[in-house]
């Protein structure tokens, strides 16, 4: 049947591209694999450095298949984007994630809001990165591309949306609402013009208001590019280990590992920037499981990337390096499982909804984990053995220790994040009930994670400060002395800073000093010993950036001040909280400011609250208006209201505020002043107990005048009134008359007020029961002063954090560029 207004051809095209991408991936894995695993192929390159030419046809077929796969992926993206841009709400995905009033820039956010969309962007980046392997991996091409093909095969299966033997395989973004399983066979699905007839198809549900933020336009693609980048070291490692080249794979994988470190790190902190700007939990990091799930692969990737240097230079540590590289990719898969399976439902504010793909996700994860593990076990013996211990003063020794420290950090975060998973496995209702009671995530997440992560950060920053000064093999003492100036300066600077910022926790003070040490020593290394040029600056700048991230996070969080202290004393064990009440037009003290709430206005979906900050005597500007902030509440009838902060940025601090509570009734509701509507049916002489404190009595029904139409005997006009007496429990009494009139066919209910008692009555007419009448009562709302609750923080030196992110991104980019552009047999000095 042809449905009017439906773009079923496009849906078909989308499906076609999905199948094309799927079969393309299958072909990639198959043909590259055949070329790779044929006898003799694992012995490395031929004399020209190319894969052996004898099986050129398979190689060409593999490339062609990957080209088809890529066309499919681009096609999927194009169709989905077109559908969202054109508001084709017959598509379930478009209907769920977008609406007509969605601003153009958020079309992309809508594209990757859902699970299917985020899989697509992930697949897309894999396809893009795959081409770099095709173009530049040379002898590694067939091995790495076989892995890429397999990964793409599994990932595209997640968006297939077909049923195999009754089991759902993947969820397609091209399903029409008409085709959803729950709608199959419903009468409307056979109506030709259902799109026009059913009003729900005129507009979609809209994008979650939380995601309507510019960070949400760039954060997901950056994060997924970072995720995708972990595939390349993984593919190289797998290829290398299968080919019995357990060390050589490191050289081509190294730039990609650093590319991943830079992009994933930036992507994660872009998410932090979004949380800081759009969410009102007051900070850029909350140790939320979803955040943790993306942080852990980054940590292991950092470890892998650093270990790769040892493999490259010293031909040792090959096993640990491969483990870390493989783990990074596997942890990305695991994080996908965590965030998409719905298993985090109880513990995270922003996990995806379960799409019924858990089995498939687990299979994917299990397949790759078990495969990697078997590969490592089987080929462990092919690692070259070295019996010598590394020297105590060698760079390689400390790099290994550093990566193990990172591993401890990753394990703790993973473990705590996985508590819901552990419950499913070994909880009282799990697969193997070991635990007596279900574990819950720690109640104070900050204390919990910081207890391990701050010591780790201290050790890591110490290593960052010192290891770059060490030499391979062993370091002469003369070179060690180069660290001393920055150590001394950072002890003094750190001490002064700790005193100036009033640090009182010893751990924080230590981290402050080691963080400054890491920043200074890397700067020193770059400027004094590496010439200070851009080409050589990658390592130092990236380290400097990460030291800044640590310092910025430490100071802005450790010294975050809630300036909105509620002055009401509750109980000695119940600390007054950090939400302050401001009546409309009033000014309250929020040390060091006076804060005034001047009013609210509605702009589109936003209810904006205007708040002025005035100086106090303390900063020599008493009464001077310093700045205004406009925190707002985003109103979305479907998804609820969202409180959004507003922040004043100074170079050395942010003043951050949001409305934590506001009366969100409409102005009409507030103005009417009548609440607690209740219905009653009353007859003459009857009494009703109203509002739990009044007795309402219907004294009489008075007909004042009535005119009949003589010919028909119908009522032409009628004027009547109900005489009501309202008696309060305390004895106050009032009697009024409520009119009711009929003119021809039109009835006009009358209203009247018990002015002294504050109750309003409407006479709604005759009830179905003879002799009884319908009434409505309201009571006067108590006069209320309009108010809001405000929470405000000062985040000192949070810009150090953002500067760190930029520096780290630049640093890793420089390091990658150096390795790509370097002279062909790139010897590193």
């Amino acid at each position, binding site marked *: 049947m042809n449905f009017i207004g439906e773009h079923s051809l496009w849906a078909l095209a989308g499906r076609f591209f999905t199948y094309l991408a799927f079969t393309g991936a299958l072909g990639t894995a198959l043909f590259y694999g055949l070329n790779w695993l044929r006898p003799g192929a694992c012995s490395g390159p031929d004399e020209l450095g190319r894969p052996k030419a004898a099986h050129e046809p398979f190689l060409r077929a593999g490339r062609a298949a990957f080209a088809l796969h890529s066309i499919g992926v681009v096609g999927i993206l194009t169709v989905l984007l077109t559908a969202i841009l054109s508001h084709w709400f017959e598509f379930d995905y478009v209907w*769920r994630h977008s609406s007509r009033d969605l601003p153009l820039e958020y079309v992309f956010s809508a594209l990757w809001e859902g699970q299917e969309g985020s899989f697509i962007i992930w697949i897309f980046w894999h396809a893009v990165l795959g081409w770099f392997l095709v173009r530049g991996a040379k002898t590694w091409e067939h091995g790495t591309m076989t892995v890429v093909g397999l990964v793409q095969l599994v990932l595209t299966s997640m968006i297939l949306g077909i049923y195999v033997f009754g089991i759902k395989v993947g969820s397609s973004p091209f399903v029409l*609402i008409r085709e*959803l399983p*729950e*709608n199959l066979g*419903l*009468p*409307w699905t056979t109506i030709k013009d259902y799109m026009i007839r*059913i009003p*729900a198809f005129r507009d979609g*549900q809209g994008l*979650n208001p939380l995601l309507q933020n510019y960070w949400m336009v760039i954060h997901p693609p950056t994060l997924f590019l970072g995720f995708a980048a972990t595939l390349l070291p993984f593919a190289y490692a797998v290829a290398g280990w299968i080919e019995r080249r357990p060390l050589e794979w490191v050289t081509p994988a190294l730039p990609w590992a650093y590319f991943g470190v830079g992009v994933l790190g930036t992507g994660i902190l872009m998410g932090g920037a979004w949380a800081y700007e759009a969410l009102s939990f007051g900070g850029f990091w909350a140790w939320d499981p979803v955040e943790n799930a993306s942080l852990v692969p980054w940590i292991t990737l950092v470890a892998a990337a650093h270990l790769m240097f040892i493999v490259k230079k010293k031909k040792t540590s090959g096993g640990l390096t491969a483990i870390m590289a493989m783990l990074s990719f596997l942890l990305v898969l695991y994080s996908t499982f965590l965030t998409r399976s719905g298993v985090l*439902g*109880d*513990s995270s*504010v922003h996990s995806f*909804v379960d799409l019924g793909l858990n089995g498939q996700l687990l299979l994917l994860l299990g397949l790759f984990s078990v495969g990697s593990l078997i590969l490592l076990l089987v080929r462990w013996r092919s690692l070259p053995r070295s019996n010598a*211990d590394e020297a105590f003063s060698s760079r390689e020794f400390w790099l*290994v*220790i550093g990566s*193990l420290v990172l*591993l*401890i950090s990753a*394990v*703790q975060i993973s*473990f*705590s994040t996985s*508590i819901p998973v552990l419950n499913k496995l070994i909880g009282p209702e799990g697969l193997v009930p070991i635990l007596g*009671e*279900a*574990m*819950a*995530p*720690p*109640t104070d997440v900050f*204390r*919990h994670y910081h*207890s*391990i992560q701050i010591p780790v950060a201290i050790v890591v920053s110490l290593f960052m400060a010192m290891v770059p000064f060490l030499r391979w093999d062993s370091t002469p003492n003369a070179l060690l002395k180069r660290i001393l100036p920055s150590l001394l300066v950072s002890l003094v600077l750190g001490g002064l800073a700790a005193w100036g910022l009033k640090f009182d926790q010893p751990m924080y003070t230590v981290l402050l000093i080691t963080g400054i040490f890491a920043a200074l020593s890397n700067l020193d290394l770059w400027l004094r010993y590496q010439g200070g040029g851009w080409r050589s600056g990658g390592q130092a700048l990236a380290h400097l950036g990460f030291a800044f991230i640590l310092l910025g996070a430490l100071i802005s969080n450790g010294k975050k001040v809630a300036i909105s202290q*509620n002055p*009401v004393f*509750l109980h000695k064990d*119940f*600390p*007054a*909280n950090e*939400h302050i*009440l401001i009546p409309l037009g009033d000014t309250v003290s929020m040390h060091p400011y006076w804060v005034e709430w001047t009013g609210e206005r509605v702009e589109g979906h936003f209810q904006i609250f205007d708040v002025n900050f005035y100086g106090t005597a303390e900063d020599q500007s008493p009464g001077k208006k310093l700045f205004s902030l406009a925190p707002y*509440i985003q109103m979305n009838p*479907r*998804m*609820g*209201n*969202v*409180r959004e902060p507003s922040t004043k940025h100074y170079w050395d601090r942010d003043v951050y505020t949001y409305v*934590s*509570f506001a009366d*969100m009734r409409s102005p009409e509701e507030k103005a009417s002043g009548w609440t607690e509507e209740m219905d009653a049916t009353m007859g003459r002489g009857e009494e009703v107990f109203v509002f739990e404190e009044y007795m309402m009595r219907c004294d009489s029904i008075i007909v004042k005048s009535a005119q009949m139409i003589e010919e028909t005997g119908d009522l032409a006009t009628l004027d009547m009134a109900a005489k009501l007496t309202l008696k309060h429990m305390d004895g106050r009494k009032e009697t009024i008359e409520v009119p009711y009139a009929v003119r021809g066919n039109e009835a006009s209910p009358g209203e009247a007020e018990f002015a002294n008692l504050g109750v309003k009555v409407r006479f709604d007419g005759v009830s179905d029961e003879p002799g009884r009448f319908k009434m409505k009562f309201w009571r006067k709302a108590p006069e209320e002063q309009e*108010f809001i*609750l405000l929470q405000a923080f000062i985040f000192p030196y949070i810009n150090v954090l953002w500067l760190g992110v930029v520096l780290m991104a630049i640093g890793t980019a420089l390091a990658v560029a150096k390795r790509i552009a370097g002279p062909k047999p790139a010897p590193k000095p």
Partner: protein
Amino acid sequence: MKRNHLIALVVIAFLAGALMVTIQDASTYATFEMASKKTPESVTVVGQLDLEEPITFNASTSMLRFTAVDKDGARSIVYYNQPKPTDFERSEEITLTGLSSGDTAFFAQNILMKCPSKYADEAQFSSK
């Protein structure tokens, strides 16, 4: 290789230590009854809002008071010294972390709400 083995042992020891600390820190899912026995330990209670009972919010102290029903069907008054979450009444399920006063009330430090899925609207197609 002696020192490498030593390092491995030290790392494993640290790892074990970190995990011990982590496990000690984990809270437990409890009912109100279990929570009252565990006072002053913090626990996590999953339950529902009792809409029959009054939900009051005192803005000047920003104290929210409501009644929750846990998975066993037991009721408890809950105090939450934070602003009332938006759409609180619409929540399908609430996860409370905090501690029981021992007898009558539960003091929540944190509330996580599970709101009706935004896909709930989809049912409108099924009913046509």
